[in-house]
C-alpha cells in the first residue's frame, strides 16, 4: 500500500490529490492565480482529514508563473521533510498531457506577457523540452494545441505518473530572472543645478527644436523637492544621461529619460526608468504616465516590458506633425 499526496501550483489553479495504489481518495482544486500560498495548506489539511498516512509527495515542478510555482514546491519539500518521506518532482505539462488522447499535440499554459509555456507530445510521450514562446509562434507549428483553461495539470494523473518518472529536482523556470547588471563604469546620482548647463546642451543635441532650455529646467527644479525627482548618470566624470519624474494628483508623470547617443543600448535608460518607478511607488502613486514621440521605437519595448500600455495619442504635441503617444502603467 502506497499513498501519494500530489500537489500542483503551476497554473492559476492550486490542486491537491491523494491517491492510494491508483485509487483516488481525495482530489480538489481552487482557481485563483494569486492565492496559492493561502489555499494550498487548506486543501492539504482537507486531504489529511481523509487519510493522514502518506508515503510519498509528488509535486508539479512547472513550468509556471514563478511565485505560485515555488509555493507548491517549497510546501511539498518541507511537508516531506516533516514526515521524513521522499518527494518526487514531475513536469506539470506532463500531468496536463496525460488526459489528452491524440497522436500528436501541444499543451500550453499561460506564461504571462502574452507568452505560453509549452511542450510537444507524440504517442503519449513528451518529445520536446518545455519552452516559452509567443502564442502566435506556437500556432505556426501547425500541431493541435490544448490550452490551460480547457485543461489543467491534474494532480491525480500527476500521482499516477510517479512510477514511470525520473524525479525533476529543480523548478522548471525556463526564463531567467528579469535582472540586468548595472552598466559598467556608470554612476547614478541625484541631478543638481550644476548639471543643468550640460543637460541643456544634451537636450539640444537629442531633441533639436523640441529641446528644453536651461530656463525650463530651472523652473522644473524649483518645484518642491518632495514632488519631483531628478536623476543623473555620469561616466568618466561626464554627464551622459538624466531622467525626471514629478507627482501630481495621485499620478506620477515621467518628464524625461534622456541618454546621449554614445551610451544608448547599455542599460542606462533601463536603470533610470527602474529608479523612477521605484520613486513613484514610494510616493504611493496610483499610476505613472509618460509621453513618447511616435516613431521612437527604440524606447517603446523598454516601456512595454515595464508594464506601460498605450492609452492615447496627442497630435502635434512635439511640434507640427510630431505626435506623442501617451503610455500609462498602473501601480495599484
Amino acid at each position, binding site marked *: 500500500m502506497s499513498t501519494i499526496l500530489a500537489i500542483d501550483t503551476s497554473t492559476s489553479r492550486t490542486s491537491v490529490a491523494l491517491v492510494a495504489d491508483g485509487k483516488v481518495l481525495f482530489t480538489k482544486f481552487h482557481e485563483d492565480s494569486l492565492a496559492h500560498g493561502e489555499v494550498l495548506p487548506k486543501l492539504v489539511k482537507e486531504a489529511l482529514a481523509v487519510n493522514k498516512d502518506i508515503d510519498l509527495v509528488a509535486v508539479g515542478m512547472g513550468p509556471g508563473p514563478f511565485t505560485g510555482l515555488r509555493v507548491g514546491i517549497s510546501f511539498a519539500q518541507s511537508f516531506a521533510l516533516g514526515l521524513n518521506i521522499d518527494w518526487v518532482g514531475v513536469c506539470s505539462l506532463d500531468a496536463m498531457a496525460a488526459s489528452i488522447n491524440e497522436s500528436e499535440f501541444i499543451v500550453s499554459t499561460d506564461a504571462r506577457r502574452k507568452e505560453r509555456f509549452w511542450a510537444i507530445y507524440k504517442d503519449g510521450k513528451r518529445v520536446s523540452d518545455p519552452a516559452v514562446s509567443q502564442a502566435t509562434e506556437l500556432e505556426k507549428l501547425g500541431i493541435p494545441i490544448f490550452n490551460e483553461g480547457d485543461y489543467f495539470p491534474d494532480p491525480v494523473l500527476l500521482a499516477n505518473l510517479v512510477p514511470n518518472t525520473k524525479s525533476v529536482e529543480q523548478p522548471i523556470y525556463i526564463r531567467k*530572472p528579469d535582472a540586468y547588471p548595472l552598466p559598467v563604469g556608470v554612476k547614478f546620482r541625484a541631478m543638481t543645478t550644476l548639471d543643468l548647463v550640460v543637460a541643456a546642451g544634451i537636450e539640444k543635441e537629442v531633441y533639436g527644436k523640441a529641446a528644453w532650455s536651461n530656463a525650463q529646467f530651472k523652473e522644473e527644479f524649483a518645484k518642491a523637492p518632495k514632488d519631483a525627482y531628478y536623476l543623473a548618470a555620469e561616466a568618466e566624470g561626464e554627464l551622459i544621461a538624466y531622467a525626471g519624474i514629478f507627482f501630481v494628483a495621485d499620478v506620477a508623470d515621467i518628464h524625461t529619460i534622456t541618454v546621449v547617443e554614445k551610451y544608448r543600448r547599455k542599460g542606462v535608460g533601463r536603470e533610470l526608468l527602474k529608479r523612477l518607478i521605484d520613486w513613484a511607488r514610494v510616493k504611493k502613486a496610483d499610476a505613472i504616465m509618460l509621453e513618447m514621440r511616435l516613431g521612437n521605437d527604440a524606447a517603446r519595448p523598454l516601456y512595454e516590458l515595464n508594464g506601460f500600455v498605450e492609452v492615447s495619442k496627442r497630435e502635434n504635441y512635439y511640434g507640427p506633425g510630431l505626435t506623442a503617444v501617451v503610455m500609462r502603467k498602473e501601480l495599484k
Partner: protein
Amino acid sequence: MALVLGIETSCDETAVGIVNDRKLLANVISSSVEQHARFGGVVPEVASRAHLEAMQQVIKQALKDASVTLEDIEAIAVTAGPGLIGALLVGVSSASGLALALDKPLYGINHLSAHIAVDRLDNDASMQPTIALLVSGGHSSILQVNNLATDVIVKGATIDDAAGEAFDKIARIMGLGFPGGPVIDKAASSGNKDAILFPRGLTQSADLEEHRYDFSFSGLKTAVSRCLQQTPNYLKADVAASFQEAVVDVLLIKSIAVCKDSGIDNLVIAGGVAANSRLRELAKQRCEVANIALRIPPAGLCTDNGAMVAALGSLAINEGVKPSQTGLSADSAASIAQVIW
C-alpha cells in the same frame, strides 16, 4: 518553555533558527547577497530562487546544530511580512508544510518585531516597557514597546529613506559596493568624522513641532552627493566617516528624546544598522550620560536571521497568543502594529 523553529526569507537571507525559550540553539543563514552585488541591489526573483534552493539544507543544518529532531520541535514561526512577496512566500509555504506534517502550531510573525525580540535571547533581564530604535535597510522607526507580542506603538519613523537605504545609496555613489552598511563602516574607520559637517535632518526647531521623533535622510543624501561633486579629490574615508556620523547622531538624538519624554529609561537598538560600529559606540556613550539602560543585540543577530523569528514565536507562546490559522498568507506591506498573524 518551548522549542521553536523560526524561518526568515523576507529579503535575501534564507535563515532558520532554533530557540528553547530564551536559549539560542541554532542560527543558520544562507545569503544570496553576492548574487545581488552586481545589480547594485536585491533582485526579488533572484532572491526568491535562492530561497527555494537553500531552504531544505538550511533547515537540516539548523536541526543538526541544535542537536534536535523535527519531532522535538513544539512550534514553527515564520516571517509573514513585511518583505518581498515572492521571497516571503517561499518561507511561509515551507513553514506551513512543516507545521501540517508535524501537526504543530504555526506562528506568522512580523519581521520588524522579530528584530527587537532577538534581544530576549541569552538574556534574562526583562525590559518592558522599552523604547526601541529599529534601523535597517527598509525601516527606521522609534517604537514604544509595552508588550512586544501585543502592544507596540510607533513614536517616530522616517519620512523618506530608511537609514540603511541611505548607507546603500551613498556607498553606491562613492563606488564602495553593496550592501552599503558594512563597506561604509569599514571606510569610515580610518576617516575623520568631523571633516565635513553634513546636515542633521529634522533637528531644526521649525521641524520639531511636526516631526519631533521622525527622521529624514534624503537631504543628507543630496548634501553628500553635492559634496562629492564639488570636491572631486575628496578623501573617501573622511566622507564616509562624516556621513556615518550624521546618520548616527540623528538616530540617537531622537531615540534619547523619546526615552526622556516618555519617562522610559530603557533603549533597545535593533535591525541591520545596529551592527554599525559607530552607532554602537556612540549609543553607549550617550546612554551612559543620559542614565538610560542600553541593549544592542550582538552584531551577528542584528542582521536578518531565523533566531529572531523563533525568539518572537517563543515569546508569543509565553504570552498565550493564539497560533495562526491554516492558510497563513504573506503580507509584503505589513505594518509594525501587526505583530502576530
